[in-house]
């Protein structure tokens, strides 16, 4: 952790969280074991791991959809498993966008579908409408689609509408589980840029679940790598990708540009460190080139 005196009241704290599927049967599976994390306010966190590493299970714990079988989760200092804890409020504060969120659309128009969340929160009609339109705008859904049926939209548009459905609850923490799965490169960049913008404007914590190193390296300021239900490493993208040899062992890899800069350094180009994004590589190379000319 970079900050030593972070106010824990503002954070989500996971304390020795364990989760076991189907305990006591032939199908028992330890999905999460001994997870200890502090998710600070305003952070942009990339959560990476192989399929089955427990990342989806972990994010479902954060809004109380799954209760841990061991350990505690605290949101703003309150234990979310406590009997008197308001789970419904937690779910509006910790917005979770599932994988392929467009599969959950059900209403007759886009606006009605996005309004589902705020309506469930018991907000007034005006407040619901305001939040709905704000969320649609934030998610980048163009206005002529507002009254269309969500089933008529294209894949990328549907996904934005689904993300707007969660944004409309105005959560403090926004979790997106593989938001770019199944999109073409352009749709992927648009969604990711949109998410980065949402993070920058809204002062929210954003957790981006992904297995694409390129995606998370570009946007996240902190990476949490999961492997077999445990936190494998936790740090800035630079710190995490330094260990790319260990990442390879668990079936992950650093971004391609990291490998490229490593190869350049081996070939004698004097880069100070490996790059994690394309922009960074460009700067490093330009600096080296200018330095060499002088």
């Amino acid at each position, binding site marked *: 952790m970079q900050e030593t005196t972070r106010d824990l009241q503002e954070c989500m704290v996971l304390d020795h969280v364990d989760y076991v599927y*189907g305990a006591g049967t032939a199908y028992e599976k330890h999905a999460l074991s001994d997870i200890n994390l502090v998710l600070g306010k305003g952070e942009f966190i990339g959560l990476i791991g192989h399929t089955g590493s427990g990342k989806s299970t972990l994010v*479902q714990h954060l*809004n109380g*959809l799954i209760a841990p079988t061991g350990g505690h989760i605290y949101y703003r200092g309150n234990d979310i498993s406590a009997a008197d804890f308001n789970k*419904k409020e937690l*779910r*509006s504060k910790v*917005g*979770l966008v*599932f994988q392929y*969120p467009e*599969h*959950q*659309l*059900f209403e007759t128009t886009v606006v009605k579908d996005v309004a*589902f*969340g705020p309506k*469930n*929160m018991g907000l007034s009609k005006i407040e619901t409408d305001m939040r709905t339109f704000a969320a649609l705008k934030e998610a980048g859904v163009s206005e002529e689609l507002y009254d269309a049926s969500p*089933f008529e939209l294209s894949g990328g548009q549907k996904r934005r509408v689904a993300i707007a*459905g*969660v944004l409309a*609850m105005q959560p403090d923490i926004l979790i997106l589980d593989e938001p770019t799965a199944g999109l073409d490169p352009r749709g992927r960049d648009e969604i990711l840029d949109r998410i980065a913008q949402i993070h920058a404007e809204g002062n929210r914590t954003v957790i981006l679940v992904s297995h694409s190193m390129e995606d998370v390296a570009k946007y996240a300021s902190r990476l949490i790598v999961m492997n077999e239900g445990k936190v494998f490493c936790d740090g800035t993208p630079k710190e995490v990708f330094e260990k790319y040899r260990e990442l390879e062992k668990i079936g992950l890899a650093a971004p391609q540009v990291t490998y490229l800069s490593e190869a350049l350094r081996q070939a004698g180009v004097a880069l100070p460190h490996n790059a994690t994004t394309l922009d960074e590589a460009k700067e490093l190379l330009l600096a080296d080139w200018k330095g060499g000319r002088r």
Partner: protein
Amino acid sequence: MIRDITIGQYYPVDSPIHRLDPRVKLAGTMLFLISLFVFSGYFGYVIATVFVGAVIKISKVPFRYIVRGLKPVLILLLFTLLFNVFLTREGTELFSWGIIHIYDQGLITAGLMAVRLVLLVLGTSLMTFTTTPNQLTDGLEKGLRGLKKIKVPVHEIAMMMSIALRFIPILIEETDKIMKAQQARGADFESGKLIQRAKALVPLLVPLVVSAFRRANDLALAMEARCYHGGDGRTKMKPLKYKGRDAVAYLILFGYLGLVIGSGFLPL
């Protein structure tokens, strides 16, 4: 939660029963069901119980696991018991109070009926415990292929069955996922009055139906892309072939049936 429902309830272990040809198990189950209704003496019950017990033992499926499968028929069992106890008017009266009369014959019939029902459920569930749904439909297709001559679309029926069975766990998983996604948006499926609860199902059912159609579409496309054109001339990767153990199993089955029928002639 919803994920805990097991359908098909195949229990994955390796046992002589698991390895039998599915046709043997299908025929065996049919024969066993018939046998349960042909015997009349007490001796028949003993033979049938011993037979089921032996098969359970050989199948290596834990007894506890099998008993759990009996739970759904518990209510049916209870009703049969009560009706038999209260409505039988034969033998000597043991107890009477108001309109309730209990005869000894009633108790005996109730007891025997319960044993018969339990054996029936155990026998059929043993088949599903030891045979995967795919083997079962394969067995059905091959076993009934004679019916093709009278224009019964055996292959199509078998294919539909295996697709339906294959889709049950997928749809359960999908339901679980959509439920969670809507709960994340504040949907409430667990409280409220009946009408409210029915209304709360709309956000679950609409996406579920849409996804079922989408999957059906994808599957149809995938099948066509693999040149699927029905059963004619289609070969199997693992064709069913009778082996020595299947012959032994048939012998044992007919031996059992003979014993049960023979037991009817015993003076018991």
